[in-house]
């Protein structure tokens, strides 16, 4: 490489680092807001005090109960919300790009429904314990659902319209299976708990869940980042991507694998939270354009911030009661989606 090329590469990468740092600052502020705001807002000074105490052992004067709320309850909850929001937004973005359909997202294509079925099956039958076992069940369910939907779409002619229709059929099938498992095996209390979880709920989240959600979100983000050019090359479809030098099959397997993993883990942790995967990437296209160099980080960040905000709203909307977060995202997401549809009417 010549010197000019190396200097160019350094300049390019340093711009990248500046943007990355900016994104992390925004994310940190959002997490801080998520910890401060809640059923009862806690003063910033207390939150800072507890975080300083826990992170680098500064002396703390905060009441241990408040400290417990901040450290054991609000912080993990907010971090998981951020990871889930980022993961679901990236999943939606990747699916929209790869299948060339503006409507694609883990929900529409049945991946989330499959993940729910898998998670519920594991919960009820008690195979394998804990978050990892449930996530593994969700992954198996999500992969199975994805496989069935893709095979059905292919048998139906392979267009992206067929994929959406197959996804609807797949979602219905797996939702029915979930209901069947619940009706057949769960007792009344279990059933109520599962129904509440299915609507999306972060109230049971603790530190071990962070240990699962964060690494998965980071792995998913990295998978997208290393495939930024490949994703761009899909603009004119898979065949055009292949003729631009993309190893289409390998990229598809890697990215769809990442999507399945992210969706499965996020659904198993917080339940079926809709619309993030659909709405966030579209909103970001509107803001930063269609290229994935900007779209991938912007979607991850916006998904995380949106989910933290939705979680805060879900806690404060009705005093003394937690609204399922899926209800909040749908209340915001559905009208936002309507706007997107109207805006895109000339391009359909």
């Amino acid at each position: 490489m010549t010197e000019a090329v190396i200097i160019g590469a350094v300049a390019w990468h340093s711009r990248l680092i500046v943007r990355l740092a900016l994104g992390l600052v925004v994310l940190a502020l959002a997490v801080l807001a998520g910890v401060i705001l809640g059923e009862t807002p806690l003063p910033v000074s207390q939150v800072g005090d507890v975080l300083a105490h826990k992170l680098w052992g500064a002396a703390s004067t905060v009441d241990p109960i408040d400290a417990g709320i901040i450290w054991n309850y609000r912080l993990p909850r907010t971090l998981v919300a951020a990871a889930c929001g980022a993961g679901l937004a990236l999943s939606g973005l990747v699916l929209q790009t790869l299948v060339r359909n503006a409507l694609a997202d883990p929900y529409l294509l049945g991946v989330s429904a499959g993940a729910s079925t898998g998670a519920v099956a594991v919960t009820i039958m008690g195979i394998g314990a804990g978050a990892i076992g449930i996530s593994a069940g969700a992954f198996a369910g999500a992969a199975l659902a994805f496989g069935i939907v893709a095979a059905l779409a292919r048998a139906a002619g392979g267009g992206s319209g067929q994929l959406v229709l197959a996804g609807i059929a797949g979602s219905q099938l797996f939702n029915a299976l979930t209901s069947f498992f619940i009706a057949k095996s769960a007792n009344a209390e279990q059933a109520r708990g599962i129904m509440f979880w299915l609507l999306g709920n972060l109230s049971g989240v603790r530190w071990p869940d962070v240990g699962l959600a964060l690494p998965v979100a980071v792995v998913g983000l990295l998978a997208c980042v290393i495939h930024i050019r490949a994703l761009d090359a899909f603009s004119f479809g898979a065949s055009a991507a292949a003729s631009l030098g993309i190893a289409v099959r390998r990229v598809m397997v890697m990215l769809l694998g990442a999507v399945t993993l992210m969706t499965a883990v996020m659904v198993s942790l917080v339940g079926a939270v809709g619309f993030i995967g659909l709405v966030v990437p579209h909103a970001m296209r509107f803001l930063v354009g269609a290229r994935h160099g900007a779209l991938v980080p912007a979607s991850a960040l916006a998904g995380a911030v949106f989910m933290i905000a939705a979680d805060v709203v879900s806690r404060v909307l009705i005093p003394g009661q937690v609204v399922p977060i899926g209800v909040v995202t749908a209340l915001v997401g559905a009208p936002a989606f309507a706007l997107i549809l109207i805006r895109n009417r000339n391009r359909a």
Partner: protein
Amino acid sequence: MRITATKLVLQAQGRTIIDGVDLDIAPGETFGLIGPNGSGKSTLLRLLAGLERRAGGEVSLDGHNLRRIPRREIARRLAMVEQQAETTDCLSARQVVELGRTPWLSALVPWGAKDTAIVDEALYAVGMKGMSSRPWSTLSGGERQRLQIARALAQRPRVLLLDEPTNHLDIHHQLALLRLVEELPLTVVIALHDLNQAMGCDRLGVMSQGRMVACGKPAEILTPDLLRAIFRVGATLLTDPQDNTKVLRFHDIENSR
């Protein structure tokens, strides 16, 4: 770069779409593919680009089997402009052409001034320099076609596969494109609809029902007998008094059966 094909076969849905095609195209040659609708021109071009996995037979670039060259390496040597290209992404004209640099970029080799210059040059070559910031969705069919050609040029290939590239173009841009193709120091395989344009190629291959039924110099190929047999038209060869080039004029023969 030499591109050769031996015994290419493609079957889909129980039908044989490409049926034993052999080709040997010399470096720098402009090879025209002609044939009626559905005769397999587009499919043959896709096979030459290595885009059909199910195909039988072998394609090679300078003697190297295409199947053993990584996709990225293929894309640095060979670029393809398909008959149609559509996107709903909100890309500018320039961004579409920039896609052509994909096979040359990586984490270690990010976008640089050289890439910008290549994209500028490609936009200029197809006369789209002045429209580089226009969104794709606002461009006409011909402008989109020219951008796809610019994208292929930005790949800096040594073999260029063009599938009816003059479709949608007005007559000025058709002639400009054919001149550009002629002047490029590349091996070009071009499917053409207009037989008079096909006369400008170095050699022609005639496709009919998935087979290459004739192959040779345009003057040997475009004979009244062949045109009657393959294209079901009568033809008269006229001479343009201005420069003595031959021009084909067609007439209907279906009614006179």
